[in-house]
């Protein structure tokens, strides 16, 4: 029995070096096609970003005098009373919990759905939480979580006594993670579900003929073929996970204690409740650097595990 050949590992797209002859003549049209996007990006993203960076170097209240702060805003992040430490820890914890769980669950569900006749219906069904307004999600989930609520009621049927889930530091973060996973489930599941649909029939048939067990097919053929999708989903999900804010904000407002404060929540509160724009921009910049570093690691690492063709 021949071993199933794994797809050739290539880096995509081909590097520019190969086409040096063309590169100069393509820079001009490239600029042309890029102009609308680059122009918009410069005006609407780059300028506000630069302004935000500049802001972080000042004491900049929403009304009142603006004074130079230098690195003071950054230094303050690590001072005694600052929320940044707990926020950073929580943000990392959220990301570590959300991203792998999301990927595994959505991938698993996508495979499960693939075996069903009602595949299309389920795709839309699992998308419902995505299109439900966050405010309604918060109301309903809080009702589910509260003592005497549905989850408590179900648990009591099994004789389990649950603590006040959103009010206990050890359980609050996990409770919010569940809501985040629930609400964002549909996006990645849709991606994977479609990727499965597009798996090349010929390779799968060959594997089946060779007598590979379904499990082996899954792990040695299907998933490797889907690594580009997994890479895309993991990159985007991670970037978003680091910026988690609205779910913990509406569910627990950062409490109990500091259990569910995130960096973006800290940014928001400093700017819009504290009225301090400079002090709000500093943690945002730190977050940016963090995300950039991790994404670059992923980007470079993709050669090792992502199979493009």
């Amino acid at each position, binding site marked *: 029995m021949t071993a199933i050949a794994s797809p050739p590992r290539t880096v995509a797209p081909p590097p520019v070096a190969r086409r040096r002859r063309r590169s100069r003549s393509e820079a001009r049209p490239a600029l042309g096609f890029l102009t609308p996007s680059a122009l918009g990006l410069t005006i609407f993203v780059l300028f506000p970003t630069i302004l935000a960076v500049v802001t972080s170097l000042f004491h900049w209240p*929403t009304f009142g005098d603006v004074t130079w702060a230098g690195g003071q805003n950054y230094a303050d992040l690590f001072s005694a009373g600052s*929320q940044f430490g707990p926020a950073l820890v929580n943000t990392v914890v959220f990301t570590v919990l959300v991203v792998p769980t999301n990927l595994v669950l959505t991938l698993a569900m996508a495979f499960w759905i693939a075996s069903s006749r009602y595949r299309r219906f389920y795709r839309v069904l699992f998308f419902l939480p995505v299109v439900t307004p966050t405010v309604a999600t918060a109301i309903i989930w809080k009702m589910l979580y509260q003592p005497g609520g549905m989850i408590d009621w179900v648990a009591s049927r099994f004789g389990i006594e649950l603590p006040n889930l959103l009010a206990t530091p050890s359980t609050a973060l996990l409770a919010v993670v569940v809501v985040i996973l629930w609400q964002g489930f549909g996006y990645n599941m849709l991606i994977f579900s479609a990727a499965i649909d597009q798996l090349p029939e010929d390779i799968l048939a060959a594997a089946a003929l060779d007598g590979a067990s379904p499990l082996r097919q899954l792990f040695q053929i299907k998933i490797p073929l889907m690594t580009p999708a997994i890479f895309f989903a993991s990159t985007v999900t991670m970037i978003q996970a680091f910026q988690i804010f609205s779910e913990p904000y509406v569910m627990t407002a950062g409490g109990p*204690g500091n259990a569910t404060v995130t960096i973006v929540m800290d940014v928001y509160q400093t700017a819009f409740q504290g009225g301090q724009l400079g002090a709000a921009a500093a943690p945002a910049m730190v977050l940016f650097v963090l995300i950039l570093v991790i994404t670059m690691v992923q980007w470079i690492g993709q050669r090792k595990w992502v199979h493009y063709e």
Partner: protein
Amino acid sequence: MKLKAKGLIAICVGVGMAAAMTACSSGGSSGGSNGGNVTLDWGFWDQGDAGNKTWQGLADAVHKKYPNITVKLTSPPFADYFTKLQSQLAANTTPCIVSMQSLRLPAFASAMEPLTDYSSELGFTASDWNAGALKALQYQGKQYAIPYGFSTMVMYYNKDLFAKAGVAEPKNGWTIDEFEADAKKITAATGKPAFGQSFSDLHMFSLLLADNGAVPVTSGGKLDLTSSTMKDAFGWYSGLSTSQKVASVPASSSDIPWGEQQLVAGNVAMAVDGTWNLSSNATQAGFKIGVVTLPQGANGGGTFSANSGFGISKTCANKKEAAQAISVITGAEGSATAAEQGNVPARTANMPLFVKSLADQVDPKNPGYSTQVEATMAASSKNAVPFISTDSWDQTTKAIAREFILSYTGSQSPAQSLQNVQNSSK
């Protein structure tokens, strides 16, 4: 490399423009002048469709009295009004006429104009007004807004649940001991906690004040949660849920108004709420609601009052006209209309109108409500002190919700929670 240089240039241009933008970010406040004709922006949180129409009517009344002034009312959602205000302040697009809560005045006072120079335009006579209402909208001795309402904190209770538990309804002037006794009896009889705790600053601190006179903020405007009176009072309040087990704990730190909602939902028998809800609570509840003054401890301090009003932003280009507009909006007729709609008036003359509107709306299914309201409001106003907050009060309230829940659930000592909030608000 070509592109690298391009990138560098782009950055330099970017920084240059950013600097230019911030250097000359004037803008000036909203409102234009047009040879004597002035358009003023008025920011007031959304009052619901019917409410907005009422206030728009008052804005139109300004134009009738002063034809050269046109007032444009914008109504952001209440929950986000102050978030939006921050961004308006940052960009100098603050509306000329700013609506302000007494609770938040210290934080925003430096962006508002003291009204002392405009008393003639305002046609202002102090005696027309409830003294507490005026005082609440003062900061460091200066008046910053003219009030449109006046409220005190009182105890709302569920008459039906009291009857079911066989407990006599509380009377104005009742004590903390009586409150505890009632709570215990009702909890035992109904199986559900009798009292709803809250994180809302007014709702919670007013009960602490009533217990032993504890106040969270010194008269100088500084946060002080670590005084011994505060520790005792808060210890007692947390104990209602942890040791006495007669109180319902908020489900999370994002449930700031907990007890008051649970009361209307019929889940608890008593909760503290403001007199601004006298009308809406009674009409919304599916049971008979009663109101009574806050139970007083041996050194009880009465209750807190709070209200909202209208002021002028510092960046307004037409301050005189704004003052004139405010005088109409808060004038006698305007106040009367508001009172008839169920808003507790700050003008003393309009009280009877308010009571009558309650009598018409609520008494049919809840006999005696309006009379009880009148008595309770009179009693609670007698020893009501305005709630003074700090200039970073918003952040403090968030810290309170996050820390106090740990004490309500017994995970953290009350003293520790108070200390943590004190530390976070430096």
